[in-house]
């Protein structure tokens, strides 16, 4: 089966920002979460994938088609949701539904009606009378009811209240009941990403700094609280990326954790008091910090 999205060594140079060597693949049946600080290049990458921005080098295949050359064909199978995808503020919700449904033969009228109810949207309402959350839901409805193979969402949950976020995530998960479909979404809400993603890519300063299965991410990382007696030194170990020591107490961050690490500490005379798992947010921050330290060195 062909991948839904394939970026291979994509580069794009701007005067004050550069996207470098971005490679990632999204297979059918998966959700990929794309996480990065503001200005890291998430939106640029997504826009390149969608053919809205042309890349300087590298290759992009969307739904199997080379981009941007065959974007018209690719986009039949792909829906893109972003805050700046225009809704006409003086037109109604119903007008938008009629318009989008006329463009896409695969439009699912019943599903659109279900979503209207579920999201509590009213067809007669004008866009300008909607709240931010309702606008996001309209965009999502317009994308979902097309039943695209690939859904690309730029910050779909940002600015949503907890209830709306919950509704949106629930709707996204139903997409994945069909294993031929997939979702790429960017977010800096690591909690959402941790919950629904199968694969996670971290991006910072225009580079993908880590990319892996979520479970692998969560399994690899640990934080150890250790006590270093006078005279003992913390050994340099593979898989340990940071040792933060103050007095006899040290906090050790490992990105390649195995039982060998505490064992090695013990034989160096160091007492391991606690080994903690880390949340995706902590892992993300540690990854960004380590990557910046390396770059700045």
């Amino acid at each position, binding site marked *: 089966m062909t991948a839904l999205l394939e970026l291979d060594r994509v580069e794009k140079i701007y005067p004050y920002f550069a996207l470098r060597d971005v490679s990632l693949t999204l297979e059918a049946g998966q959700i990929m979460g794309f996480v990065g600080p503001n200005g890291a290049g998430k939106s640029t990458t997504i826009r390149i994938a969608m053919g809205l921005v042309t890349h300087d080098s590298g290759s992009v295949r969307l739904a199997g088609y080379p981009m941007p050359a065959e974007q018209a064909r690719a986009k039949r199978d792909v829906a893109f949701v972003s805050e700046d995808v225009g809704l006409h503020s003086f037109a109604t919700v119903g007008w938008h539904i009629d318009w989008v449904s006329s463009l896409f033969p695969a439009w699912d009228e019943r599903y659109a009606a279900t979503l209207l109810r579920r999201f509590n949207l009213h067809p007669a309402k004008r866009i300008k009378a909607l709240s931010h959350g309702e606008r996001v839901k309209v965009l999502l409805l317009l994308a979902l009811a097309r039943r695209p193979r690939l859904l690309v969402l730029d910050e779909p949950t940002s600015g949503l209240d907890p209830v709306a976020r919950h509704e949106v995530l*629930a709707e996204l*998960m139903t997409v994945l009941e069909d294993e031929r479909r997939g979702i790429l979404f960017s977010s800096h809400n690591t909690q959402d990403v941790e919950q629904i993603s199968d694969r996670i890519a971290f991006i910072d300063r225009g580079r993908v700094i880590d990319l892996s299965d*979520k*479970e692998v991410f969560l399994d690899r990382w640990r934080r150890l609280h250790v006590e270093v007696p006078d005279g003992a030194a913390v050994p340099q170990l593979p898989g340990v990326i940071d040792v933060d020591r103050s007095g006899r107490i040290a906090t050790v961050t490992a990105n390649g954790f195995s039982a060998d690490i505490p064992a090695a500490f*013990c034989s160096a005379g160091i007492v391991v008091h606690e080994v903690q798992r880390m949340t995706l947010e902590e892992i993300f921050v540690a990854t960004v910090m380590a990557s910046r330290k390396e770059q700045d060195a």
Partner: protein
Amino acid sequence: MHSKLTISQADPRPMYQQLMEQIRRRIAVGDWVPGQEIPSIRALAASTRVSVITIKRAYLELEREGLIVTRQGRGTFVADNVDLCRDLQTRELDEHLARAASIGAELGMSAEMLARRLREIAEKEDEKGR
């Protein structure tokens, strides 16, 4: 039967372990009976709002424990031969012990050290009981 499992952000255990425990409980109380088909990975992912890879992992581990079986192309079922309550309680105990063993290993403790620790704790509990 299309039941919802829940994930708590306040629970320090990984999500797949939270799911495993809830599934075990469903089988233990008889909501899911031996031989019964349980939701597909994708259906459960959708209803729980948790990624497919996480549900897959929970199912895989439960399969390893012998609690559920996947028949290629037909679905996933509660194993026929689970001797419910007793078996599940033993399993739960084993799970706790396995967790203790892995924490012990992370702390660099040998199996003997762990066993000694366990004996001490058991004796203390015993005294409390008297």
